[in-house]
């Protein structure tokens, strides 16, 4: 009968096969657990900082708007949690890791040129946003919404403005990802954050599309 305190007296030849298999599994399992525990996070996407940057850019291009709607608690908690994790990580990490502290200072020559174009265009677009002729989609892009009362020349003008604005917005998100080394795969995250910011900063009376596709006047 096998007993634990007999372990030292057992010769290798006397170890039953099931026991050898168990020991082999243990010897593989423990290093595997250790390897899994040693997590390396190579990419950090600072959503709160990007959100702050988005608010700055939207303010600069649209000249400020209504105060942004309060963020949902989960998003805020996520940001705080990320900061705590970063702080903890910084305490135990070498200096190079600390240098990864996010700094989303989104102002490069490209971004400035894009913002300037968007700012000039905003003055032309705002009357149509106010009248409901143009709305903000759930993706944060502009769309011709209600063309009632517009003649065709105006519709054409608005469409061209909307197309140019949407193209610049996509270029802006791409450039922010490039400037901050987030990689092309983060453009969608940046777009999503900006989408919420454009909607939050919409002025009263503007039309904004909800997640379900319905339109609501702010």
């Amino acid at each position, binding site marked *: 009968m096998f007993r634990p305190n007999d372990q030292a007296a057992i010769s290798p030849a006397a170890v039953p096969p099931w026991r050898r298999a168990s020991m082999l599994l243990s010897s593989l399992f423990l290093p595997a657990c250790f390897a899994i525990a040693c997590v390396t996070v190579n990419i950090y996407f600072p959503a709160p900082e990007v959100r702050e940057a988005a608010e700055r850019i939207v303010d600069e291009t649209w000249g400020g708007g209504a105060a942004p709607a309060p963020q949902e608690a989960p998003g805020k908690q996520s940001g705080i949690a990320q900061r705590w994790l970063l702080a903890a990580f910084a305490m135990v990490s070498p200096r190079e890791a600390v240098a990864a502290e996010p*700094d989303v*200072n*989104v*102002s*490069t*020559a*490209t971004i*400035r*040129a*894009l913002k300037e*174009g968007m700012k000039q265009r905003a003055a032309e677009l705002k009357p149509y946003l106010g009248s409901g002729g143009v709305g903000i989609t759930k993706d944060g892009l502009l*769309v*011709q919404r209600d*063309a009632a009362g517009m*003649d*065709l*020349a105006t*519709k*054409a003008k608005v*469409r*061209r*403005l909307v*197309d*140019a604005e949407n*193209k*610049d917005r996509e*270029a802006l998100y791409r450039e922010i990802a490039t*400037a*901050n080394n987030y990689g092309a795969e983060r453009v969608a995250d940046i777009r999503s954050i900006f989408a919420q910011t454009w909607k939050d900063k919409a002025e009263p009376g503007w039309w904004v599309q909800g997640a379900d596709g319905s339109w609501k006047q702010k």
Partner: protein
Amino acid sequence: MGDGEAEHEAGKRRRRRVLLPLLVGFVVAAIAIRGALSFFAADLFMAAVRQAASRGGLEIVLEGEPVVSASGFEAANLTVRTRGGDERLRADAVSGSARFFLHRPFLGVSLSLVGASATWSGADSGDDASPLLLPLLPAVFSRVEFKDARVDFGAGRVASIDAVVTAGEGGSLDVRWSRLEYSEESGERAAEKLAGTLRLTAAPSPSDVAPAPDPPRAIAAAKPGAPTPATGAGDAVAPAQALHVELVVESGAALVGSVLLDFAAHPLAASGVIASGDKGRLQGSDLAFALGRLLRGSGRVALARDRTLETADVTLASDDLMPAFVTLVREPFGGVAPALADAVLEGSGQVTLRLAAASRHSADATVSLSVRSLRTRSLAAESLLVELPWIGASLSGRAPRVGRLRAAKLSLLGLPWTGVDTAVTAAPGSLRAKAAQEWKAVGGTLRISDLVLEDDARGGPRAAADLRVTGFDLAGLGDALGVAGLAGSLYGDLGRVRIDADAVRAEGALDMETFGGSVRLSKLVVEHPFSRVPEFGLDAKVDGIDLGAVTARLGVGRVSGVLEGQVTGLVLAAGQPVSFDADLHTVKRRGVSQTVDVRAIVQLGVLGGGDSGSITGTLLKVIDRYRYSALGLRCRLRNDVFEIRGVETDGDKDYIVKGSLLPPSVSVVSHSQVVSFSEMLKRVQRIASIDEGGSPNVPSQ
């Protein structure tokens, strides 16, 4: 009163006794006839309409009897279906008036519909008679007038119209509309205040269109004197027929995507034969159109079931390209493609296109242009003759075709080049220059060889060429590009240069022999070349540059020495740097002194964050030049933040200039290593304002 007068009075009374009853009788009879006609009108109408509809393969369903009165009629819930049961047209309420008049062969009916509203569902089904439904009308009515008629095509597509439809001679149907509005919820297409005419005449079917079961019967029914085709589900299919269409749009405007067409300025006249074919196709043949002086075209097309273009054999031409270019290209797309924003294209042109399938890879086309003047922001050409064939990649069996490209004068990136003249060969999926080209400008030659334009399923449109540059005068190049202070020559083998929608990339490098040394430019790239903000990228390796010559040329403070180093990852956009890493420093060379004058010391100090006044205050003005042992900068720009380091670091001190051991020597130390881009711009502006004595000419910002 005499006898004569009495007799006259008696006659009058007799006539009254006779005429009055006759008149009353006539009026009563007229009222009775009119009432009878009105009484039977609904049945007559519906019988005629149903019969005609049946001949056209359609079925009219009316829920409830129409209400007919002397002033008009009302009907509710009218539905038009195919014999298969598919609903095509639904009108919740139709009201109007009918007028009867003598008309060949015996009685005419004029119908006026006011405010009719209907829902059309035929457009989405494809295999229907919807495009050819209209000829049903003259089989029943001589004249139909629509006032504010509204048709809902579904999916947010709505049209309203004021129009008069009359049966013309020879079985034609004439439509004159004084107002046609159309809109889509998506805003993709719209029409406003369109006015014009449409004439539809039965025509023989094009031989290549398969017989269609429904529309020909409708047309046959519309044709007076034509034998009535057999009806019933088991009947043999009648030979396919088609409609000859003549369309004129005299005024109003239409919006298609971003293209706005003003028909008052450019009236549309179009004609052709339209027939529905198998699988819901719609075939247009003998098509011809003219859009004012903008554009004219001819040919034939086939539309698929969903009304997208399926095949085409068309020719488009313009005798005056500029208005066509402005209306169809520059205005609609100038906002998203800035290169077009102020572009000019003057001349004439023609495009022939054969499309064998709904893909550009099946296109067989030839573009012929005779351009007096072409101007964009970066390209200009005069007397440009283009004859470019194109064979789509999927047309693999086609024999190659030859074309030509010739320009008497060419300007690219502000440089005036000698003319271009090259033959090109089109093979499936590619267009290749037959021989190498040599363009000459500012004393140098740009050799372009193996130039090829490709487009196939493996990738989007792209171009590539081998480029070699020899002997360009940098001063002339700088003048053309607006870059001051360049000197020397430019040469190099750029290797394979590839252009696509996302970037222009060169595999090779350029070399500048300048200021006694050299600069090698590599990793040359233009990202997003067709966007509003293209980004230029390169690496530069600097070797043996005579700083004395550079500073003398630039008109800044004098520095003697030899400069070496490199700039990596330089990205420029909108005329400003976006990012780079630079390490530029002097190296000791035998026989080359290393000195710096007072003005240069002050300028380097300002660049490092110092104040010009405090710097000059610490210098001995009696000494013009100071010795140094090392001078240089290590800079990094990321995200609008400059990090500036000197050639040597000591704690928080960075030496931009490290003094020599022998006097007179000077060291310039920076303590502010990180500055914003805007601060760096201010420093550069302050540097430019510093005079020979090292003092600022204008107050510091």
